[in-house]
């Protein structure tokens, strides 16, 4: 007997009798003998106490560092209530709302999630979430290619290289060609766009704040694209959207991004959550689930998945996306986060992050170790500097004080080996800044 398996000897006997066989083995009679496998070479069953002991042993081989980097994963604050709510079994253990009558809980929060993402991005319609920001960007690429029936796109090279890497993979197998748009002083350049965007391109994909942490300025971009019927995809960190001009205001056709910055735990890279929002006109090309409002037979308002035969009836071989399970629980997480923070809290958290980042930035530049890399565009909470000392020396100095950073941009093929990236959030304190500066001063 095992705690997850309620079958007693008597149960088994009675059930076998009903079935009309005399052993469970007989239920595998259709499996060719040659295939039958014996004895899994796996660890033995662990009791809960042994599991705790085991995880303690693993944890002993882990040093948790305080990040002063981001690169797509930000150490923001999580309001305490969220875990309590998302762990309610009604949310946690249910599946896709196939039976809307008993899934109004899930459907309602998806509706609220869509509404909030629309508010943040300014877009008309958002979906119920995608795997992560990188795959969401790939889905956006598929989407605009399908809308424009073109197989070529332009991608700014200020996008985080991991996202570009994912785009390249998705594009390659689908037969889409990616052209890269060069940056000017660390941001996507209007001049370069004018020079390189052609009729062949379905559209342009950019990111803001970009891989260098810089806020991009898309003034004029939309005009250039419209001339060639190019669609405009903006990937943006949603935690910046209480401050920054929205994708919609820049003229985006599709807004995508990674919403981990909305309080999700770092969790070594996942689960995170991608979002995708667009103009209503493109709804039938949107990947993923969409929830809509309707009425029940008695006229009560209620919610359903709408617009597409997804799931088991997914458009099969006419599909433009294959996503089925998404990151629903994280959509709930983000929804509660945004409800808790509200418009003011989202602004404040971002402002505190920015204030901490600018402070650190300015203090670092006072040291003889760092120099600016770009001039021009301001950054948000993440910034890039040039280090005159070997990067690993700087990293080790901080690690000795329990900090993770700075990130060596060369690991992503950016810069000349001296470029480093820092990021701050509202969790980092004045004391953190002092400790970091002191640790680095010791190097000079």
């Amino acid at each position, binding site marked *: 007997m095992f705690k997850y398996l309620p079958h007693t000897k008597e149960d088994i006997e009675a059930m076998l009798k009903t079935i009309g066989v005399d052993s469970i083995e007989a239920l595998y009679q259709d499996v060719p003998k040659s295939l039958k496998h014996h004895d899994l070479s796996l660890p033995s069953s662990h009791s809960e106490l042994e599991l705790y002991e085991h995880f303690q042993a693993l944890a002993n081989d882990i040093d948790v560092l305080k990040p002063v980097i981001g690169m797509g994963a930000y150490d923001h604050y999580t309001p305490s209530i969220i875990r309590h709510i998302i762990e309610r079994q009604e949310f946690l*253990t249910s599946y896709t709302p196939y039976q809307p009558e008993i899934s109004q809980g899930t459907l309602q929060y998806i509706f609220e999630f869509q509404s909030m993402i629309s508010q943040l991005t300014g877009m008309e319609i958002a979906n119920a979430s995608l795997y992560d920001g990188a795959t969401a960007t790939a889905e956006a690429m598929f989407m605009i290619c399908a809308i424009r029936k073109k197989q070529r796109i332009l991608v700014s090279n200020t996008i985080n290289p991991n996202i570009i890497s994912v785009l390249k993979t998705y594009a390659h197998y689908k037969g889409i060609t990616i052209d890269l748009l060069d940056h000017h002083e660390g941001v996507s350049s209007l001049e370069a766009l004018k020079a390189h965007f052609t009729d062949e391109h379905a559209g342009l994909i950019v990111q803001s704040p970009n891989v260098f942490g810089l806020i991009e300025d898309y003034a004029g971009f939309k005009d250039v694209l419209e001339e060639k019927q190019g669609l405009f995809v903006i990937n943006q960190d949603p935690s910046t959207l209480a401050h920054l001009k929205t994708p919609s205001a820049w003229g985006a056709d599709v807004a995508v991004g990674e919403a981990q910055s909305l309080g999700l735990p770092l969790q070594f890279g996942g*689960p995170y959550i991608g979002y995708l929002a667009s103009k209503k006109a493109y709804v039938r090309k949107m990947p993923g689930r969409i929830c809509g409002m309707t009425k029940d037979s008695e006229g009560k308002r209620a919610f359903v998945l709408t617009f597409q035969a997804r799931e088991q009836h997914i458009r*099969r071989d006419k599909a433009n996306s294959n996503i*089925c399970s998404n990151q629903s629980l994280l959509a709930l997480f983000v929804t509660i986060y945004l409800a808790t923070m509200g*418009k003011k809290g989202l602004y404040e958290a971002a402002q505190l992050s920015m204030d901490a980042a600018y402070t650190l930035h300015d203090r670092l530049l006072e040291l003889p170790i760092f120099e600016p890399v770009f001039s021009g565009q301001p950054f948000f909470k993440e910034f890039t500097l040039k280090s005159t000392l070997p990067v690993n020396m700087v990293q080790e100095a901080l690690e000795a004080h329990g900090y993770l950073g700075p990130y060596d941009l060369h690991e992503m093929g950016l810069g000349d080996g001296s470029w480093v990236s820092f990021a701050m959030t509202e969790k980092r304190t004045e004391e953190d800044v002092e400790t970091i500066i002191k640790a680095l001063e010791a190097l000079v």
Partner: protein
Amino acid sequence: MSYYDTLIFDLSTHARKGYTLPKRTFKRQALPTHLLREDCPGLPEVSEVEVVRHYTNVSMKNFGIETGMYPLGSCTMKYNPKINQDLANLPSFSALHPYQPTRTVQGMLKLLDDLQSYLSEISGLARYTLNSYAGAHGELIGLMIMKRYFESRGEHHRVNIIVPDAAHGTNPASAVVAGFKVIEVPSEKDGSVSVEVLKGVVDENLAGIMLTNPNTLGMFEKDILNVAELIHDHGGLLYYDGANLNPILGKVRPGDMGFDIMHINLHKTFSTPHGGGGPGSGPVGVAEHLVPFLPKPLIKKVDNTYHIERDNETTLGQISHFYGNVGVAMKAYTYILSNGKEHLPEVAKFAVLNANYVKESLKDLFELPVEGVCKHEFVFNGLKDKSTGVTTLDVAKRLLDFGVHPPTIYFPLLYKEALMIEPVETESKQTLDRFIEVMRVIAKEAKETPEVVKGAPHNTIVKRLDEALAARQPVVKYTDIPK
């Protein structure tokens, strides 16, 4: 109690607050105005108790596995142990940034690498990546591996992927998204693929086939070794959709059946919760000759140290920003260790026992298209007595009145009134007996008072929904709601 029909936006009141943030003394930074938004995002302004009370009431409109039985075919809605959650939430693991130096995260990497090995052992495939976020994502990656493999051999013409018509919709969709051509083949009455039919479609353009075994009807594909031989003989590869792995844990291994690539749905077989539709995790495993093509980055053990290999010559590329849904993987890891080698095979056995028990107990009233032992699930083609006009949809909706989550309906497409039942091993005989009893009551009602069944549900907080209206007059966000 009264129906909770409030949206979080309805509760919003100007200047109310639900958060606290620290006071810091950093200088306040101002950005140039041309980069700033002019309006304010219309997020709710509510107090903490309002948020908590709201989502608690919203949760009460949902049915979870701990509410009652959830025999949703193809989804393996087994009990999700709490210990999985507790261990994944341990700060030593959950607070880790993905770019911590590998030196500082050996315990985390060991866990992930061990999980990869356990999945190999369970499935008979050489190596796994955990980077894939869900089943469908796994399919896509698996197909990319196939393509990369053929590219590496210069066999660019191999673009045909065979998919049985009974397959899950994601199978053909993934094939298309990976840039393949889908060759749909008809299934036999028992959901199996016939070697004869396959012979008609295998040619020099063959890339591979996507199957699941037990198949979509829950029947074991007895001919699987012949199918594998045929495909391999024609230079193709076999992809295994791991959604149906539960009934063969420790019994048969896809790798041994001849499959070259597969994904595993950790959220199904390995009990990490489904979370209302995600996050899942769909690790992809491959046979030895395909290992070079696995996506990057890859967690690897070399000389007792764990590394993250960020690039290599042969990889198919990158398909996720970091290393997949690590938090989900931790739960599956916990589940494997909890069960251990002793109980994992029992999981399979009892899943199969439960399915056959329910099938045999109901087949006098529901139409069973395929006789014989099934594995973890089976499909009825609606009520046996078709004269009542009561459809599978009606039966499903009537189940709601009895507090039972309905099975999967109208899938697979093979049967018009498909009702796909997967009772899972964590359900006791008593629970199954109650389900059987309720199903029998409904069958009786269908005869005697069909209008009761057709009008169902009667006891739910909302009644049947007008799905057409939602598509006709799209209201997809708060501001779309007519005032």
